[in-house]
């Protein structure tokens, strides 16, 4: 009996030591789904193989309530160790994130050896608030112009010269319309937030700004905003280039749509659809060829007070590994990796995605033509206010002037709260 007891104690002791060695558990929670999620899973699997001493639990796919759940998890002292934060959500989330340069266990960036110079300066700076660095850039992604080469030919247009100026664009739309197809869809599947992004593209191209730098009031209810919204509404109505309620994704995949504004994530679908497609930068319609985009960044949510150093470091190691291997990320999901070294990987440069579309988007990013969404604690509410009325204007319920006025009023109300 005694011998059994000793054996048991030894076994326990060994187990305890073995447990210590295995003790770093990281939960990495992302809001990615489908192709993106698969790409991230591949990267994490590589990490697991390279770092068996760190257990990574990967939870993906719940993008709908992601930021609310992240905050609730922090409050409930049960947060993931690594998460995703869109760059425009930083102000909203800042209270719930660990400052990487001033964490409870020290400067995590130094400890993990993350070199800021590997990232474009603007993207890196976007993760800073109040002098602290909260985010590590993962990628930049955005909208481009997808076009159907066969429809171009049928309309008498050159399939290798997509329109890049206002006049070329109008001519192309009219020609495609005459050939009996949907000429142009400016907003992916026409969800409210996509319609808003389309309007923002037109408005930014005119040189407009949504809010003043101090976010005291809305500044889009003006001539430019109106012109941009009228252009958007006319696409679905007066110009006859598309129909209200039309789904750009569906139309393009069915070979019914000549040109589409859509994000890089449309690439797998476009490839699978069998459509002979081409990709071009967003044309310069109104002055500056801006496009809409955003940036995924990695963040470390606020951890409970007694979280050991190894846990923080484990998360940072994972973050660094992800950015270094982001060529997988770009190849699968189409988001352009932020880490400059990852962009040089030959596997990426040789891939179909890069050759057919990625390098064009990267170009736009390098030229600073990608406009990120507004960064404000109540950003999602402001955006919702704007897109509600834009959608109503597009379906013809209210006039563009009325829409902008109402949006402005609601935004100002939101800004004046608290």
């Amino acid at each position, binding site marked *: 009996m005694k011998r059994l007891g000793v054996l048991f104690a030894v076994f326990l002791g060994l187990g305890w030591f073995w447990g210590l060695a295995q003790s770093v558990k990281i939960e990495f929670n992302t809001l990615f*789904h489908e192709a993106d999620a698969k790409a991230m899973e591949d990267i994490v699997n590589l990490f697991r193989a390279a770092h068996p001493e760190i257990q990574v639990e990967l*939870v993906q*796919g719940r993008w709908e*309530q992601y930021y609310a759940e992240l905050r*609730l998890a922090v409050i*409930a002292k049960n947060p993931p160790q690594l998460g995703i934060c869109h760059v425009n959500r930083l102000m909203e989330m800042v209270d719930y994130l660990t400052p990487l340069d001033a964490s409870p266990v020290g400067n995590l960036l130094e400890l993990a050896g993350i070199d800021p110079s590997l990232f474009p300066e603007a993207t890196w700076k976007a993760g800073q608030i109040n002098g602290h660095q909260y985010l590590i850039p993962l990628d930049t992604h955005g909208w481009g112009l997808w076009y159907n080469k066969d429809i171009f030919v049928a309309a008498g247009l050159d399939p290798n010269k997509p329109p890049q100026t206002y006049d070329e664009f109008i001519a192309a739309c009219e020609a495609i319309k005459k050939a009996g197809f949907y000429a142009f869809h400016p907003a992916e*599947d026409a969800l409210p937030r996509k319609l808003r992004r389309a309007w923002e593209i037109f408005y930014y191209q005119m040189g407009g700004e949504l809010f003043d730098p101090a976010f005291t009031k809305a500044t889009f209810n003006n001539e430019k905003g109106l012109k941009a919204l009228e252009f958007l509404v006319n696409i679905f109505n007066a110009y006859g280039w598309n129909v209200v309620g039309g*789904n750009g994704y569906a139309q393009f995949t069915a070979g019914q749509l000549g040109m589409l504004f859509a994000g890089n994530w449309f690439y797998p679908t476009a490839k699978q659809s069998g459509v002979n497609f081409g990709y071009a930068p967003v044309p310069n319609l109104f002055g500056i060829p801006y496009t809409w985009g955003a940036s995924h960044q990695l963040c470390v949510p606020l951890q409970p007070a007694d979280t050991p150093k190894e846990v923080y470091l484990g998360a940072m190691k994972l973050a660094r590994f992800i950015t270094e291997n982001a060529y997988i990320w770009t190849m699968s999901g189409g988001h352009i990796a932020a880490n400059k070294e990852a962009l040089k990987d030959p596997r990426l440069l040789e891939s179909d995605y890069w050759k057919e579309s990625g390098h064009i988007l990267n170009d736009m990013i390098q030229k600073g033509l990608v406009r990120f969404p507004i960064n404000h604690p109540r950003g999602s509410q402001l955006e919702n206010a704007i897109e509600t009325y834009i959608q109503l204007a597009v379906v013809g319920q209210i006039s563009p002037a009325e829409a902008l006025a109402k949006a402005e009023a609601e935004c100002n109300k939101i800004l004046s709260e608290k």
Partner: protein
Amino acid sequence: MKTIKSMIQNGWLIIMILLWVFPSAWVALTAFKSIQEIFTIPITIFPSRPTLYHFERLFSTWPFNRWLLNSLFLASFVTVISLMVCTLAAYSFARLNWRGRDVLFLIILASMFLPMEVSIVPLYFMTIHFKLFNTLYGAALPIIPLPIGVFLLRQFFLNIPKDLEDAARIDGCSSWGVLRHVILPNSLPVLAAYGVYIFNYAWNEFLWSLICLRDPKKVTLPVGLRLIQGAFELDYGLINAAAFMASIPTLLVFIILRRHIIRGIALSSGIKG
């Protein structure tokens, strides 16, 4: 003359049946069409070359099987526990006398009107506190104490003749004995009826499962369908195939147990005060 009249009568009913079933039929038809055929304008009604392509993709891209099992587990767990717990409570309200019994019953009855929306965030914290978050048990527990269960069972128990119980009591039966030997054997219909009701309720529960279950592999069928729809709303073939597959289990059960289910519902609701 009579045959023509009955033919017209039957005809009307057939038309109504066809109209009513048409939306579901349209989903089923779409599920078997190829992508190209779905996306052609003008649309076709019947698939020219039925294909299982979407179903293959459904099971390979999404953990549909897991969702099915999760839903099954959740609904079964909720049904069993709820039956047990509500029976005990209903028995207590119907047959045992104690202070505050009727007041408490009214309170529980009133809680029938409580929409879960009020409690979402508190429930969130509670499930995290009890380490039930992101588990099927956490998704199940708030659904189990449905007030309507206690209400229905109590109504039925009240209608069981008191003589049977008195006889048993005189025999020296304890309350538990009465429950086991008098109430339960006579209550099988209403227990089955409530069982069916709450199984369906738990199977279709959406809001709390959406919030509580974080891992896409742990969600139930309704939430899983939402994930598919939310991910890439364009994939109509896949979405319709998913909707079709999600309906098959319940429809199969219904076809097999139709008479019992209908009788159960009729019974549980036809109870008068």
